[in-house]
């Protein structure tokens, strides 16, 4: 969908996307020529239809920020809330009391894991690290886990 400022005959630019409120997104566009602003307010079905494509709505800069944050949070992924919060998928986070650190390089690799399997991947690797007497996950541990599980 594109928006045109008719008086200026100029394509409008996406400025901000408000957080979803009862299924509705508030998406503000402005004309780079005259500064006129409009807001597109979606209904729940429209919001859902776009989200189902697995794409993100927002200016390019905010999409990049979400992408960079992917290692620490699953919030940016369209599938983040797909898996029911079961005891099984969270067992590692809940049951294992000893905290395990992640090096920056290992965390960067964790960001490659799709958000819908990231919690269980993280918990499983931490369990593997503990079982092998390590309280820090680094790239060596990840490689060892790959080898151990025949990957």
């Amino acid at each position: 969908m594109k928006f045109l400022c008719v008086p200026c005959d100029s394509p409008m630019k996406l400025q901000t996307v408000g957080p979803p409120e009862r299924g509705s997104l508030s998406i503000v566009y402005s004309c780079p020529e005259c500064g006129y602003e409009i807001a597109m307010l979606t209904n729940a079905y429209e919001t859902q239809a776009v989200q189902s494509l697995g794409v993100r709505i927002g200016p390019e800069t905010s999409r990049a920020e979400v992408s960079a944050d992917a290692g620490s949070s699953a919030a940016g992924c369209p599938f983040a809330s797909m898996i029911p919060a079961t005891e099984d998928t969270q067992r590692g986070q809940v049951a294992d009391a000893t905290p395990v650190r992640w090096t920056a390089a290992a965390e960067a690799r964790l960001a490659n894991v799709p958000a819908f399997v990231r919690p269980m991947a993280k918990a499983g690797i931490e369990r593997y690290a503990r079982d092998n007497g390590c309280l820090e996950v680094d790239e060596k541990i990840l490689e060892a886990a790959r080898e151990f599980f025949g990957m």
Partner: protein
Amino acid sequence: MKGYHDIVGDGGSGILEQVAEQRSRIADGLAGVRHLVAVGSGKGGVGKSTLTLHLAGALRARGLRIAILDADFNGPSQARMAGVQEALFVPGAHKVSLPRSRNGIAVFSMGSVIPESEALDFQSTAHGESHTWRATREFALLGEILASFEWGTLDLLMFDLPPGAERTVQYADFLGPRTSFLLVTIPSEVARGVVARSVAALSKGPSRLLGYVENMSGYYCRDCNAIKPLFDADRGRPADLRIPCLGTVPFDPELARQCDQGLPLAELPNTPVGRALDHVAQQLLDSLESTREPSR
């Protein structure tokens, strides 16, 4: 006044660019895969998943590099049958490594992610309207899986499709002309009728139809060491699906029991079922090699 096509981009989100990027990531991820084969039917309960796993096993026994993507997200069974229900997903430098079965088949199945007591669910802003968006979301998920996991260099990537003739066609649309289709039926007129509809629907598109396998074609009685009829149609005329028959595979209760436990059947190659699967595997390879790969 400018029209839609006079304006470059969409002013912000770049939806089309994001979709194109997803497509590009999928193509990159599958670049090392020689053959993509979707195992479908249209009919449920004909043994697509079991046949997929055992065909993969027969191909693996020939030294081929094989992976299975269980595309039945709502009723995944490959994780249990391949023994990867407790799989660990380990991130590599760029992609996520796939768990492997005991005989070395790489397997992705939602059954490794969601316990059998839970259903696949998506967060939604449009409550009670899932029929309008659910299929779109499932295909976006399939794209994410294809793009994120490490398929690497493979001889075959097999897709275990969900039931439903319309779903089979949707997968053909999504996977594109690189993917060939193997259909599964059983010796029942009802099943053959549904599979015939799938053949008709798939024939309208560019996907290659390699042929079909008649599964549960009799059953293997271990006491008698003989194949006995399972359906009336076993005694009747063969299926006329207008595509090649790549073989018939009898039902083996022992094999079904082992599948439930996620155990490979060591003695399989020496049974009539094992020999039938090996024959189908050879027919499948011959068919793939004899069909020219379409341009990408």
